[in-house]
């Protein structure tokens, strides 16, 4: 299985990765290709799937405003979730980083721990907290005088964004945290010795350096939110559909697999384009920070 003396052996790396490569081609690339194919097949209530090549499903998605609205909702929710996690997660990571060793590791555990707890359980918690018009959250907000009448959270986009932000928050904190670890611990003192105040230090010294962390966290959160299933399904219910829940319905309830495959393919392509595009943009913008 090795290694040391065979720098000239050009076959060795391929031999080592051949099993994994075959696995990926056999049970990832082929199924994905089959899904793309499926999106061009025909389907009828009684005839089932017909393996022909037609654009029916794609035409339906392109013309029926229902789909445009659904995709727009999906991405709107993902964007809002991303902004919320960045706005709260980045400062929290910074505060966390300034804590004493023991508290730091305790709170890091408290914040990252939920990552390990089932998404279903976490979302269920939010469903309980929202719980109709007299849910705990509304009671709290009203008694604190933040709002006068209850906000509907269940079956709304607001509720979905709040619950999703909670589910995704650990990724953002982790990403910013990683960027903060690369910071020179003396850098704030250096800035201070040059006469900078706390606001200036954060704005001019810290922010530019953790921005790559925030952005790469944002990409993770965005792509996971746009394809999230459990949280939209539980909070959004059957009425408020996003791409993932719609594809699920087409597959397991309506049984219109080709249409579901088309929705899934579109989601995949859109996400890959957005993620690859923004990754490239960020890397170009921040080459020197990433080095």
């Amino acid at each position, binding site marked *: *299985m*090795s*290694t*040391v003396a065979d720098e000239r052996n*050009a076959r060795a*790396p*391929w031999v*080592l990765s051949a*099993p*994994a*490569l075959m*696995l*990926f081609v056999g049970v*990832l690339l082929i*199924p*994905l290709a*089959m*899904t793309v194919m*499926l999106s061009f097949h025909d389907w009828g209530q009684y005839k089932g799937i017909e393996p022909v090549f037609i654009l029916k499903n794609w035409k339906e998605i392109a013309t029926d405003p229902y789909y445009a609205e659904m995709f727009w909702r999906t991405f709107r929710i993902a964007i809002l979730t991303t902004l919320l996690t960045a706005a709260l997660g980045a400062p*929290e990571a910074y*505060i966390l980083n*300034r804590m004493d060793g023991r508290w730091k590791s305790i*709170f890091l*555990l408290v*914040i*990252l*721990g939920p*990552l390990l707890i*089932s998404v*279903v*359980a*976490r*979302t*269920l*918690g*939010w469903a*309980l*907290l929202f719980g109709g018009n007299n849910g*705990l959250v509304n009671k709290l907000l009203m008694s604190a005088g933040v709002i006068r009448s209850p906000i509907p959270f269940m079956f709304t986009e607001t509720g979905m964004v709040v*619950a999703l932000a*909670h589910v995704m928050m650990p*990724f953002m904190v982790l*990403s910013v945290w990683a960027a903060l*670890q690369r910071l020179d611990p003396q850098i*704030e003192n250096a800035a201070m010795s040059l006469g900078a105040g706390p606001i200036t230090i954060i704005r001019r010294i810290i922010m530019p350096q953790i921005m790559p962390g925030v952005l*790469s966290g944002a990409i993770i959160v965005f*792509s996971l939110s746009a*394809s999230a*299933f*459990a949280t939209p399904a539980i909070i959004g219910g059957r009425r408020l559909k996003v791409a*993932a829940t719609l594809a*699920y319905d087409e*597959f397991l309830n309506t049984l219109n*697999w080709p249409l*579901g495959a088309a929705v*899934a*393919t579109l*989601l*995949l392509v859109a996400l*890959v384009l957005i993620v690859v595009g923004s990754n490239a943009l960020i890397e170009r913008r921040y080459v020197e920070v990433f080095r």
Partner: protein
Amino acid sequence: MRRNGPLALIFHTIFVIVMVAPILVVCLVAFTPEGFLSLPTNGFSLRWFRAIGNYPEFIHAFWVSLGLGALSSFVALLFAVPAALAIARYRFRGRDALAALFLSPLMIPHVVLGIAFLRFFTSAGLGGSFAALIIAHVIIVFPFALRLTLAAATGMDRTVEMAAVSLGAGGWTLFRRVTLPLILPGVISGWALAFIQSFDDLTMTVFLAAPGTETLPVRMFLYIQDNIDPLVTSVSACVIAITMTALILLDRFYGLDRVLAGKGDTGR
């Protein structure tokens, strides 16, 4: 290092409360004596924990999840370790493309994977089988297994291997006696992270599971779709308790930071 101001600490307190609240509320509701979802204002009761016993499918689903997670993470490592060694040690044409392919399941939405596997396995006559679940989970946990093994293999001191070779070790002996022990911490972390991913997956598995092969998250999700009673909260509370226990044990014997934040951005 400067201290946090009062404003920062208030923000932090609220942040932590919000992070913990939904989990806490699930655990509290699990102890309700009522027949509906409510906070246990009239004393605590274990009736909903006892009720789990009447739903053997939850117990069964737990074992399916456990077995699936353990097995798929192990199988993923069988493929990932040699691949990680190849990527870590050789500079060859197609290396970047290969790494990108192996990490691609991170970028593909799990709904899409669920649909693709459903289509694939039904046409292969494996629909709803445990074998299909294993293969599908191997793919989704592969990137986690690969990443941590890769980090360990890249960070490994190659001269240690050279020393072993100079002393006469080669081939399988070299791998078993020296290379594997050296990358073992990474491999174990990779397994743990892979297990967590597998154990927690709902989105992909919900497409593939059939009665009998339903995992715990799938069983819980399907239950919520039809019923609204505190049973799922008591099941969730059990899962949370088991997770916490596992975490504490892991932290005691292995160091959680090594598993979780060890390589910075494992969350990806």
